[in-house]
């Protein structure tokens, strides 16, 4: 085995810096959780716009989805962090600066809201009209129907796709080091600058991400399948 290859599997350097790397990972988790909340709520809003009866609302919803689904998250991140504050500053005539964490959450949250909107929309349109008719016939308001009949079924239907989106979103949190959010990748780069041993550190980071995502997603998948099966014949 070549020396370099051996080095790449020697993860002792990675282990040595575990506390600072652990802190970075917590940042990844925080960015993920906040961005997921933004993506889910904005995505649901956009989906409701997309299936609205009124044309202007549908246009706004469609524009939202197309804009954010087709924008690379990397570019969105840079744009939100460096351009958006200037634009806002021009409007309110004051210097504005975003905390890198805020920029990361906004950028990733909005990019993924485009994908979540499509998942929500597909789920809502798959609900049989009779389900909604039954709600209306018993005097339920449209809001009550949305919360009690539509969404609980949509969530079950879109779970497999939502899980994939969550996995992508978690992976996407690795690019936030670009705007100096001190996440795992950012801390790894810092350590590499000091130690000059990129092989074990990058390999360690890759393994860490793999293990976390693999463990979380297989657990979530097992739970979601059991939950979904209850309502399927």
């Amino acid at each position: 085995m070549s020396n370099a290859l051996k080095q790449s599997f020697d993860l002792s350097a990675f282990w040595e810096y575990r506390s600072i790397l652990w802190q970075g990972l917590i940042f990844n988790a925080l960015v993920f959780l906040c961005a997921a909340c933004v993506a889910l709520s904005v995505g649901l809003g956009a989906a409701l716009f997309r299936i609205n009866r009124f044309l202007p609302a549908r246009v706004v919803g469609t524009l939202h989805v197309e804009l954010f689904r087709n924008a690379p998250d990397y570019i969105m991140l840079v744009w939100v962090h460096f351009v958006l504050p200037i634009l806002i500053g021009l409007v309110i005539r004051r210097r504005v600066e975003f905390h890198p964490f805020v920029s990361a959450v906004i950028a990733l949250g909005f990019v993924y809201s485009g994908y979540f909107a499509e998942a929500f929309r597909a789920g809502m349109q798959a609900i049989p009209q009779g389900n909604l008719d039954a709600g209306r016939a018993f005097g339920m308001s449209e809001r009550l129907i949305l919360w009690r009949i539509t969404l609980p079924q949509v969530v079950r239907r879109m779970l497999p796709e939502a899980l994939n989106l969550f996995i992508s979103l978690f992976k996407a949190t690795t690019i936030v080091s670009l705007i100096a959010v001190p996440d795992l990748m950012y801390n790894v780069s810092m350590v590499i600058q000091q130690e000059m041993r990129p092989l074990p550190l990058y390999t360690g980071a890759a393994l860490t991400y793999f293990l976390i995502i693999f463990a979380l997603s297989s657990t979530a998948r097992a739970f979601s399948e059991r939950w979904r099966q209850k309502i399927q014949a």
Partner: protein
Amino acid sequence: MRALHAKLSAPIFMSDVPRIRIAGVHKSFGPLEVLRGVSFDVQHGSVVSVIGASGSGKSTLLRCINYLDPPNSGEIYIEGEPLGSRIDARGGRKPRSLAEINAMRRELGVVFQQFNLWPHMTVLGNVIEAPIRVRKIPRKEAIAYGEECLRRVRLIDKAREYPARLSGGQQQRAAIARALAMRPKAMMFDEATSSLDPELTDEVLSVMRELAVDGTTMIVVTHEMSFAREVSDRVIFLHAGMIEEEGPPAQIFEAPQSDRLRQFLSKYRK
């Protein structure tokens, strides 16, 4: 004798205001005129069956009665109260808001051809949902009455099951219990047995028969002629969006007046 007379006259007095009055209902979908002026009354505790060929407007009529498809003109009255509009202080008519229509239509229980149970809730969950969320009945009370309704349709042992695990007949009985749980002023059945296998229709029809015997006010759209004949107080034959003939079941089935009704019934006699 006087007491007996008083007892007998009570329902006659109540029948002054029909439970449901359908007055001149028109409904079109684009250029297609589905209902062309349908009017009839449903008295308290009576069963009215609506028969007619496919496409005669039967299901649309039910959807108009509870405003799932609001009629283009005409009005529905529930115990004298117009469903789609209200009389304002100056005596003029104002269309009701969606919220007001919701409050009115909860008085009509609907049983759909396709059951339309909510698949993510248990049978009992389906039954108590609207009483709790719409009628704001305390949960405990709603469960107690919901279980009573499930007993009535002989489904209490399936209360904790999800609809997907029930047979079609059981699902339809659960849907009947769900409608009963709202304590509606009238029940409407939209071809309640049409999507069931023949061996499952009897269990649903027998539940409906019991409701009729118990004095439930019912509008029944059906293809089950023997059921309509046995249970109804009045039968309405709908043809091309209009009432072609109506009367007591004996007259409709034994001595039909119009050619169209004779023709229609002959298909069922074969």
